[in-house]
């Protein structure tokens, strides 16, 4: 029988280190990606994800299952990410205006053999375009979109993380998707066949 996250966390509280390992396995990838989409820097995202897990570990003795484990986990992650974004913004104000603007440090993944370099570049540009559009959203809207779209969380959970009502969240999400619809209009209007690798002549 698979244990729920809450049961796993209660086992961690009781001193079972293996249960912490299971939670780490389960949430490492979504957490790193959520943080990466928030801070747009892979190294910072990993560092913050480590900090989230470390905080969970430190708080294990005081853990009480008052909410879903993911609500707690992503609440910590959201707070850390927002602090990091704000700190980074202050730091960026101090650096020279000659510095390259808003360069997101995505690790370079080499294209597979079946993909041509121009297609790879096109896909990379599309991904960057999408990430840039998400990054321009106001903080709260960005968190809401990431948790809704990529983490597929339910409204009640996202509302708890963002500390707002469900109806406020629905309005927030609508405004965010409306902004993205306008910003990503060239990609939205583009038929799927035009996407890299799909319209390729054989």
């Amino acid at each position, binding site marked *: 029988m698979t244990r729920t996250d809450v049961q796993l966390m209660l086992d961690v509280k009781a001193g079972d280190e293996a249960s912490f390992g299971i939670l780490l396995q389960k949430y*490492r990838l979504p957490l*790193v990606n959520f943080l990466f989409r928030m801070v747009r820097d892979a190294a910072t995202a990993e560092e913050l994800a*480590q900090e989230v897990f470390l905080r969970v570990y430190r708080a294990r003795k005081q853990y009480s299952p008052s909410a879903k484990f993911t609500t707690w986990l992503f609440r910590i992650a959201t707070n850390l990410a927002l602090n990091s974004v704000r700190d980074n913004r202050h730091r960026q104000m101090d650096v020279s205006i000659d510095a390259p603007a808003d360069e997101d440090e995505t690790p370079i993944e080499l294209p597979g053999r079946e993909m041509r370099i121009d297609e790879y570049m096109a896909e990379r540009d599309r*991904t960057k375009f999408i990430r840039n559009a998400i990054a321009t959203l106001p903080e709260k809207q960005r968190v809401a979109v990431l948790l809704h779209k990529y983490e597929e969380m339910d409204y009640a959970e996202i509302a708890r993380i963002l500390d707002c009502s469900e109806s406020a969240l629905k309005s927030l999400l*609508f405004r965010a998707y409306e902004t993205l*619809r306008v910003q990503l209009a060239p990609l939205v209007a583009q038929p799927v066949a035009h996407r890299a690798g799909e319209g390729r002549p054989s």
Partner: protein
Amino acid sequence: MKCEEVSRNLVAYLDRRSHSAERTEVEKHLTACLVCRTRAEEFRKLWGVMDEDPGIEPSFAFDARLRQRIAAEPHPRWFRWLIPQPRLAFSLALLLALSVWMAKLPPAENSISKTQDFEAIKDLGVLENYDVLSKFDALSELPPVQPSDATKSQSDPQNPDSGGGS
């Protein structure tokens, strides 16, 4: 349902998390309103576009680094609970000092209250006597006591008429 209301419920409708009544209302509106219908279609496409972002993979060293950091954490010692928190320690010390100071106060007020207590105890026999207490009202009906001549002259030696007036 108006466009504004549909906007509020559109995301929940598209990801199939709205209630059936809401769904019917939104569907009815979408059939009639081209603007909202177009928006709904573009939202669906937008979500497809957003799925193109593959995200990133955590580095191989992620777990090892975390384990290292956890191992470097200070381990809780069994006697840790004995070490009081600074605020608690300060409050306890303050409370203790206050108790000592109050205990060392001179017992001046106590002696006064003891004298008062003694007076009360002296009259307790009268105060607890039901017969006396219940007949106090009857005493008030008595005519005022006429002072004797000797008392009269003592009380007002200048005016021989005072006191015996009527």
